[in-house]
């Protein structure tokens, strides 16, 4: 990076660190923070979408739809995350490949399961095995997002389902008395008022989601934990210009600071949002705001 970095072994500590912290490997470490933030930025709205659909389904008047919603909530909430992450991703991947296999190679006569190999025809591979690595990474990342969204969507659905029931029933009855249809009541009365009840639960979920991102590592995505472990390990001078001892404790301390700062920031934002949502609501918070004004 800097011109004086050609021989780091003769540098004094500050210059050495300036060089060390700007090596290509450290850049990949910094970029992995972006990966984590990107995952959160995509997963949170998608999970909320899953949650909303789940909650809406669970309280539907059409019984099979309601069962479906409740089944989704109960099933995903009851399975340990790590099982879900390891099993579901493989199952989803193989399921997709199986479907593509059925469509694209109808005259394939060999069994798909051969011992431990899962063999579909070349054209059914997802992504195609000839595709460059970047597609495989995008595919892996997408699977991770979908898995996170399904898991956290189930919890969000439960929170939203509860929040919808917490909206005072009198509000809905009044709307009905005014001649609103069910659809109108749902979108104009129920949804705008339920957020204040949902937010404490959703903010918990958001915090858990932030802390669950290291599970990415299980899915083969190179996240901050992967790099911290690799970079923190002791390095000998034969294979790097920057030999050092076991620095894992410092790297993980860095991660600790990152996660704490990030959750703190989230808390501040969520608090503000809560104040805003409470405004004019028939809750204790809303009442306190009214009295203070």
């Amino acid at each position, binding site marked *: 990076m800097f011109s004086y970095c050609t021989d780091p072994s003769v540098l004094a500590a500050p210059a050495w660190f300036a060089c060390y912290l700007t*090596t*290509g*490997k450290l*850049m*990949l470490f910094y970029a992995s923070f972006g990966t984590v933030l990107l995952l959160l930025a995509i997963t949170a709205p998608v999970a909320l979408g899953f949650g909303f659909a789940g909650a809406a389904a669970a309280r539907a008047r059409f019984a099979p739809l309601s069962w479906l919603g409740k089944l989704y909530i109960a099933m995903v909430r009851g399975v340990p995350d790590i099982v879900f992450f390891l099993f579901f991703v*493989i199952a989803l*991947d*193989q399921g997709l490949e199986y479907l593509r296999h059925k469509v694209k190679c109808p005259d394939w006569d060999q069994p798909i399961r*051969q*011992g*431990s*190999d*899962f*063999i579909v025809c070349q054209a059914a*591979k997802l*992504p*195609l*095995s*000839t*595709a*460059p*690595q970047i*597609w*495989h990474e995008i595919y*892996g990342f997408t699977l991770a997002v979908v898995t996170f969204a399904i898991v956290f969507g189930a919890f969000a659905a439960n929170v939203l389902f509860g929040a919808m029931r917490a909206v005072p029933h009198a509000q809905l009855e009044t709307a009905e008395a005014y001649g609103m249809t069910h659809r109108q009541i749902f979108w104009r009365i129920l949804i705008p008022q339920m957020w204040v009840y949902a937010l404490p639960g959703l903010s918990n979920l958001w915090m858990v989601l932030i802390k669950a991102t290291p599970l990415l590592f299980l899915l*083969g995505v*190179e996240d901050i934990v992967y790099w911290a*472990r*690799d970079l923190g*390990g*002791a390095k*000998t*001078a*034969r*294979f*790097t*210009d*920057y*030999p050092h001892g*076991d620095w*894992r404790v410092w790297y993980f301390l860095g991660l600790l600071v990152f996660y704490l700062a990030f959750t703190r920031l989230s808390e501040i934002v969520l608090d503000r949002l809560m104040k805003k949502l409470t405004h004019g609501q028939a809750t204790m918070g809303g009442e306190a705001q009214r009295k203070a004004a």
Partner: protein
Amino acid sequence: MKKILLGTAVLAFSAGMALAQDVVRMGTEGAYPPYNFINDAGEVDGFEREFGDELCKRAELTCEWVTNEWDSIIPNLVSGNYDTIIAGMSINDERDEVIDFTQDYIPPATSSYVALSEDADLSGVVAAQTSTLQAGYISESGATLLEFATADEIVAALRNGEADAVFFDTDYLAPIVEESAGELIFVGEPVVLGRGTGMGIRESDTELKDKFDAAITSMKADGSLNTLLVKWFGEDTDTY
């Protein structure tokens, strides 16, 4: 309209895929110098990088490097996350049941004990990396086996006193012992384990295996493999 748009998008996508060249993805660990490691620039480097790139050139394949955790390196090969394992993996029967190996490209390597002092208890707690030949050897030797996911962690465990000794590949340990300024020393006799190092390939991928086998044969024949072995493992290493 929507359907047409979606159809076009799918077409465009698959056309893009079809244009791409055939890519063989080389799976490695990236934490096992001098076999393979991530260099300062953040790229896979080491003996296997140089060797693998040469193989791909000879077999006329486009190769890309992928890193994966050691513990799950075989399952991820089988499930198709990459097409080969080139990660200093010794050929043994247990692995051969699940995947296929090319011929060996490194002669059977020695493993050694490293400890903090000459009189370390080699039948006490010995650290080794999970699912390696060394871990298998220790668990049968009567010592208490302490397993870690990476090789780096076993050395850390020795330094902080969690283990009485470590048992691992001599080529990996040698530079570490050399630079420890007398803190770490080799103890006991080196042991030869395994049948040499080979590339792991899915059992169904016979064509790819043949290509790499041919390339390895040609590198053995013209002596370029030996040159690489000496470059990365030193003058005293076994060659073909």
